[in-house]
């Protein structure tokens, strides 16, 4: 297996990216912030081990591994903030279970298909949650990561083999990420009214710029559909949070 996604441990400090995400700065997505403030290696799709479907599945697993770790840490963070009930805690808890399920399923599928060692190892992540001081910060961070997950799966589709037996299952995961995104958006709008955001892509949305999203499907912003993000864009966005991959 490739070891290109197994970097030496580094002292990652994604505090700037997290701060921007938490602050909800308009136009400063997880990605623009991360690209600007990445501390070390920026991973690309070439760093994902395997080929064909295994590579595409490992890409999905890399993101699910990170996402499930984030959810688990966010649950702990909410508890540390004295929050152990209510809609934010309840949905964070529920979605943690789902994301852990996704990661475990993908790891098992890759191992079944490619044998022992085919799956990308479990990672260690530093999300800078210590810099977050309130529940809203946790929620905003989760929202950005979920929204990224929806787009990341769409962006991965071209990398599956044609008529891949895995594509339907990957799609069955992708839409759950979309549900999570919308539910967390509603939670946000309920808990922090006044700056409500929309729960789904709109028709005629002119704020979506195809070039910025590096999409393979043109003019998505005007079609009321989810936009895609290419794997390289996604990996650049999450790279600052990766401390190491593997033991």
């Amino acid at each position: 297996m490739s070891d290109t996604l197994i970097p030496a441990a580094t002292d990652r400090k994604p505090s700037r990216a997290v701060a921007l995400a938490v602050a909800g700065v308009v136009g400063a997505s997880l990605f623009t912030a991360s690209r600007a403030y990445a501390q070390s290696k920026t991973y690309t799709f070439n760093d994902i081990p395997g080929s064909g479907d295994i590579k595409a599945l490992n890409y999905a697993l890399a993101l699910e591994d990170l996402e499930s770790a984030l959810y688990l840490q966010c649950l702990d963070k909410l508890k540390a903030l004295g929050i152990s009930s209510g809609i934010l805690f309840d949905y964070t808890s529920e979605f943690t279970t789902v994301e852990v399920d996704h990661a475990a399923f993908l790891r098992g599928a890759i191992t079944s298909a490619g044998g022992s060692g085919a799956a990308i190892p479990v990672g260690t992540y530093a999300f800078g949650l210590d810099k977050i001081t309130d529940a809203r910060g946790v929620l905003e961070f989760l929202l950005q990561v979920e929204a990224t997950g929806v787009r990341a799966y769409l962006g991965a589709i071209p990398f599956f083999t044609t008529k891949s037996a895995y594509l339907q299952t990957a799609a069955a995961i992708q839409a759950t990420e979309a549900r999570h995104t919308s539910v967390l958006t509603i939670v946000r709008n309920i808990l922090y009214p006044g700056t409500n955001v929309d729960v789904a892509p709109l028709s005629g949305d002119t704020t979506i710029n195809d070039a910025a999203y590096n999409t393979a499907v043109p003019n998505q912003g005007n079609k009321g559909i989810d936009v895609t993000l290419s794997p390289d864009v996604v990996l650049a966005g999450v790279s600052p949070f990766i401390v190491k991959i593997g033991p």
Partner: protein
Amino acid sequence: MNEMTEFLRDGMNRRAFLARMSAAGLGVGAMALLAGCSGDDNNNNNGNINDANFPGVPGRSINEVVLNFALTLEIAEADLYRQALNLAAGRPITALLDGQQNTIYDPITVTSAIPGPQSTGAYRANISTGGLSAGPAAAAFLYLVQFAYVEATHRDYLKGVLGAMGAPTVTNNAKGYAYPTGTDLSSLKAILTTLQGIEETGVRAYLGAVPFINDNGIAQAAAAIYSTEARHSASVAYLIGLDAGPRKNRTAVGDKQVTTTYPHENTFEYFADPNVVLSTVASAFFVK
């Protein structure tokens, strides 16, 4: 309990549902669709590859057939949303969406009429909330407006894609679409309960079509629509007090799983076979 309610409710046996539809004389359109779409459905069968999984759906290739399958559903869904929005806004049920011209199936050409973020445009709620409190009721009407436009845009998008491919393109059912007699559309909550069931069917339809697509670009475009249907369903479910899902509950279309065992009910989405979706939707909503 009427047919539509049964379509929406958990625990509905598909066979019983279809039998009831047939007994009610509502299976004619579905049978026409299954038989090759002659007559009322106005499908263009030029170059139809006659894939048994998509009975009557035109297309020179399986990809075109899948896109026409999606368009068949989006045309119906967009029109059902348009009708629901008109009901909720106190407008005539035949009224066009603001921004449409000439007929209810025309594309939205006056894009300035499309409501922007967090806006209901010129639409105002004029219906009972059905017990929703002020906040959820406002959100419910907002979603109704937004999703009505999004579904119309999905329809227009798919038509555009098929047109660009030079593909035969399915047209609207000649006699239109309607909620079955007796469907409760008397309040915002009732309307959204109905639409949430339709959205769930849409999610299953797209996911069920994925294995047939042999072009990943087409799969990507379809998936980008599919996940918005999931967003719609989850959002509406939240407002009306249902689990946001995924939930295994669409027995009318025969819920199927992408893997034998789901660790939890909401780990993965569920899907339905295209021919089952077509027959069920046609039975329920195509005017004969």
